[in-house]
């Protein structure tokens, strides 16, 4: 069996995204969706609902009265916030594992994914792109292909890195040459198989090469900028490091400056630290046990 075929078959064996997550994404993709429809898409998943209520009632939100239902959570915290939390819960188990091929310890890919999701929402606000739920979800799932390619990258890591260093390829070009696929394109296949809404599939598939689309897509640009910012800041990055192509045209299209990127980065980090505290407070394994509690000699 050829390597390419083997990798494609692997996509087929991935556990499906939970029905509730798929349904939720379809609702998110519909700007006219109502609170009732959103509740409907979540409420049959007991595990997610109870985890959501636990987080909503954590000290973080500082609510004076307990939230006891999904509808109440949506009304008091806002639908966008609730959707973001639900999607983060859904993807946690999938993304939290170690991805050794990419040099990502347990928790690192999830942290990176949540950071890109948050950054995507921040960029969307800056460039006034509507549909925050969709933007967040696209950011959250952009690197899903790494979960499939991980073991293949591990086998061929030395060759991929050699091509990056000697032939001046970026990491995904090297993946494509050595393995037949890059993680973004495999991610697109997974998203199709999961029947995710088309805009999300596009974001996953083109998060490193937004200019491959004609016409370009503001949502894809958005995820590209968010991912680039998080790579720069080193949030949950692995051995592929920053070996991806910078694309100044995307910044020009949205009239963003280098300073805007800095601002996006600063906001992302502040929000990421808040979200991490939500998840590390509960039963989700932290990325690095030592990193969750500050040593008393840390000054800042």
């Amino acid at each position, binding site marked *: 069996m050829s390597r390419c075929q083997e990798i494609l078959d692997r996509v087929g064996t991935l556990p499906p995204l939970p029905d509730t997550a798929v349904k939720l994404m379809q609702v998110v993709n519909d700007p006219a969706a109502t609170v009732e429809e959103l509740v409907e898409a979540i409420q049959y998943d007991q595990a997610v609902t109870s985890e959501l209520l636990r987080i909503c009632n954590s000290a973080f939100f500082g609510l004076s009265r307990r939230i006891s239902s999904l509808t109440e959570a949506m009304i008091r915290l806002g639908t966008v916030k609730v959707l973001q939390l639900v999607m983060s819960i859904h993807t946690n188990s999938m993304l939290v594992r170690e991805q050794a091929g990419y040099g990502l310890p347990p928790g690192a890919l999830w942290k990176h994914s949540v950071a890109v999701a948050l950054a995507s929402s921040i960029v969307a606000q800056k460039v006034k792109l509507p549909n925050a739920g969709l933007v967040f979800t696209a950011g959250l799932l952009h690197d899903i292909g790494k979960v499939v390619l991980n073991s293949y990258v591990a086998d061929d890591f030395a060759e991929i890195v050699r091509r990056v260093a000697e032939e001046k390829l970026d990491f995904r070009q090297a993946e494509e040459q050595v393995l037949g696929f890059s993680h973004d394109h495999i991610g697109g296949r997974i998203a199709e198989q999961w029947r995710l809404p088309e805009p999300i599939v596009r974001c996953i598939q083109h998060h490193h090469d937004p200019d491959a689309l004609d016409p370009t897509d503001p949502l894809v640009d958005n995820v590209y900028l968010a991912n680039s910012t998080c790579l720069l800041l080193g949030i949950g*990055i692995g051995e592929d*490091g*920053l070996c991806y192509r910078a694309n100044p045209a995307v910044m020009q299209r949205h009239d963003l400056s280098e300073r805007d990127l800095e601002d996006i980065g600063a906001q992302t980090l502040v929000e990421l630290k808040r979200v991490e505290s939500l998840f590390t407070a509960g039963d989700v394994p932290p990325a690095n046990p030592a990193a969750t509690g500050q*040593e008393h000699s*840390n*000054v800042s």
Partner: protein
Amino acid sequence: MDIIVDIADLAVSNDPRATLVTHSLGSCIGVAIHDPEVHVGGMIHYMLPDSTLSPEKAKANPAMFANTGVPALFRAAYELGAVKKRMVVKVAGGAQLLDDNGTFNIGKRNYVMLRKLFWKNGILIDAEDVGGSISRTVRLSVGTGKVSLRSRNREIEL
């Protein structure tokens, strides 16, 4: 004992058994300082050059920016008895995305700001490993002052 210095964080120690560690330096810069006479070590992992971007964020967390964080790092080390003229200073990070046009250059601006700060304050860099497109992990042993740097499959002493 490892003391983890997170992104936008700084730490100092005078415990000779302690090792200050920072992971995943991309365009951010890690500065490790060490006074060998009193065995005081310090490390910062700052993410952006200039606090004028957001004075409120700098107030809440000076270690986010070079111009507020690096002076805070030195001050914290002085409080433990370190002296400027004995300080050994090592620098790593400041990586970039692959780019021929010099955009997305937070790493470069982070480094330029550090040089400027050190120039004004008469501080010399003893060793550095900056630039490129790699992620770096830096460790400083407070007891020995040894700084090691790991990136991809390369591990060196700085």
